């Protein structure tokens, strides 16, 4: 439903916005504290974050109905990170993250429909139901990775390929506060710095690695400094504009050939670690409520846009309604699409290969694998 009154209201095309400065490590200057928010961008960020939020909440619902099984790590609360990062890079850049990946799968171009159908394990899923929550891929998006920390060397490797192929692309390599102590991350820091790989290491610090708070896991919780010889910045991960500016800054740094850079995004997840974790045994409901009421990324952007007269409440409500509809349709698809056929069982073992025989559960079951 179009609000015809919208045509008669003049909105400023853009506003100057002041953002929080970043804490810096081995950097003389950081990202600019002044940024410009255009109406178009603002509405787009709002819509994207709202879509991600509603998608995750729908996944929660479907999981409780046992339509989604296994692991489901939800991203609600952290939307500003994924959206801000995507706004700071371009689609030809590369990105890899860990298992809390539904949001990034969306920002990297996969439709809500394909994401939800992958969660429900249907053939219309982005990985045809073979991967599930933690294993979704797209062009220049390398998942979705289940082993904590393993994605960081992979990301450094993608950055090596960027450097090798000379196309001025960068790789954003994400990990959490829990993964930040992994040895292989330090191995990646070393090689990335040594070879000046165009890698933006980003630690999404949501304060808890599963049920363990940062204070109980890390001798140093200054994650932006943990790269030691790698310059770092600590950013307010609840503000999409701060994240965008920091990402732009980091991408420029890498593209100029200076080597890797590290960003810590301070953020928060509303859900527990996964759907099997209620998330209140190691933190208080008050803490969660406080963040929701004072620092919610979507509410903050909405308030900013409305208070600066960049959008009307009507318009926002329209977007909300459209998003709600999109999610409902995607959920419909995800629950009605058929499961993959049994013929798919042995497909995709090898790429570009002659068909090969695969042993089934007993010697008389001879299955075939096709590329």
């Amino acid at each position, binding site marked *: 439903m179009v609000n015809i009154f919208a045509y008669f209201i003049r909105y400023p095309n853009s506003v100057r916005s002041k953002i929080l400065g970043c804490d810096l490590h081995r950097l003389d200057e950081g990202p600019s504290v002044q940024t410009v928010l255009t109406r178009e961008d603002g509405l787009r960020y709002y819509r994207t974050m709202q879509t991600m939020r509603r998608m995750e909440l729908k996944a929660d619902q479907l999981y409780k109905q046992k339509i989604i099984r296994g692991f489901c790590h939800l991203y609600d609360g952290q939307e500003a990170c994924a959206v801000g990062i995507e706004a700071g890079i371009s689609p030809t850049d590369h990105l890899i993250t860990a298992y809390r990946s539904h949001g990034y799968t969306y920002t990297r171009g996969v439709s809500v429909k394909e994401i939800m159908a992958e969660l429900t394990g249907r053939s219309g899923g982005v990985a045809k139901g073979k991967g599930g929550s933690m294993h979704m891929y797209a062009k220049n998006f390398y*998942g979705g990775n289940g082993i904590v920390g393993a994605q960081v060397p*992979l990301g450094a490797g993608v950055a*090596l390929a960027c450097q090798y192929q000379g196309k001025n692309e960068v790789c954003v390599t994400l990990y959490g506060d829990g993964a930040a102590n992994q040895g292989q991350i330090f191995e990646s820091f*070393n090689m990335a710095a040594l*070879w000046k790989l165009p890698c933006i290491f980003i630690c999404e610090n949501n304060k808890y690695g599963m049920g363990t708070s940062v204070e109980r896991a890390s001798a140093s919780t200054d994650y932006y400094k943990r790269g030691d010889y790698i310059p770092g910045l600590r950013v307010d991960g609840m503000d999409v504009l701060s994240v965008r500016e920091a990402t732009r800054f980091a991408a420029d740094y890498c593209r100029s050939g200076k080597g890797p850079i590290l960003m810590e995004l301070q953020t928060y997840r509303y859900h527990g670690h996964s759907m099997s974790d209620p998330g209140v045994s190691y933190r208080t409901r008050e803490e969660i409520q406080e963040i929701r009421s004072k620092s919610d990324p979507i509410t903050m952007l909405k308030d900013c846009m409305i208070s600066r007269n960049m959008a009307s409440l009507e318009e926002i409500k329209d977007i909300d309604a459209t998003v709600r509809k999109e999610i409902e349709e995607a959920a419909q698809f995800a629950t009605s699409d058929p499961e993959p056929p049994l013929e798919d069982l042995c497909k995709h073992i*090898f790429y570009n290969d002659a068909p090969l025989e695969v042993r089934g559960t007993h010697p008389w079951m001879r299955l075939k694998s096709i590329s």
Partner: protein
Amino acid sequence: YSSSDISDHISVTVRDALNQALDEELERDERVFLLGEEVAQYDGAYKVSRGLWKKYGDKRIIDTPITEMGFAGIAVGAAMAGLRPICEFMTFNFSMQAIDQVINSAAKTYYMSAGLQPVPIVFRGPNGASAGVAAQHSQCFAAWYGHCPGLKVVSPWSAEDAKGLLKSAIRDDNPVVFLENELMYGVPFEMSEEAQSKDFLLPIGKAKIERQGNHVTLVSHSRMVSLCLDAAAVLAKEGIECEVINMRTIRPLDAEAIETSVMKTNHLITVEGGWPQFGVGAEILARIMEGPAFNFLDAPAVRVTGVDIPMPYAKILEDNSIPQIKDIIFSVKKTLNV
């Protein structure tokens, strides 16, 4: 161990054959590059990559710090993003530090992504027992890697094997674990003119019959093929003709070649350097049990393997920890009941 007309054959060590394969594939495709410890300026810990850094430079031949998990992951990431890395483990013992990247990041990804993300990578290096390097440096990983779907696992024996199979591995669009053998590096073999060509490829997944025979089938891979041939030569003097099969590939296993041979000889012995439990031989025997060749066996199939212990250091102990020619001969005679 040559065959047929030798006028156009030259003698090439396994090391040089591997070096040639690497050189030719680096030249052919600029996406191919080599990384690992000491591969560049040191010319390779075992000199397999000798001369390559001088020829191709820092971009294509990369010395890494001693951080296997990190650089194996970097290699896999590079493969995902369009390059064709060759990741060297100084020995496969060190690959244990990186095994998560080999299995979970490389082997499983094409399947998990339903075909969206191929991983064209080769992991190579010496595998198995060496000489006097003791327990932590002597493990055979053929069974461990051979266990996992999504990987191809190759184990060459001769110079021809080394060259043809490494070239195929590099050209393969999938993760390949390439198990070399340090004690074979210096061994010379006759290489035919065909094998000397830049386009010489051997198919992964096909075994080779190194010696024809009618009385018993000996199946082996890597260095143990030499022992089988030596044992066969001794047994021939007593009128026992062994058919020696060089597996060449651990996974996918060429069960058909083994079955065809067993259906002819009616007797089977597998010979490997690795530990017996859940090993390569165990898999072969299980397959023979489950397949058409079982009814052709005149005696139970048996395995000749390394002793089920960590590798000791003292020479006399080490020598008795791995199969010897006399063990193969003994097993053949027991199986044939002579």
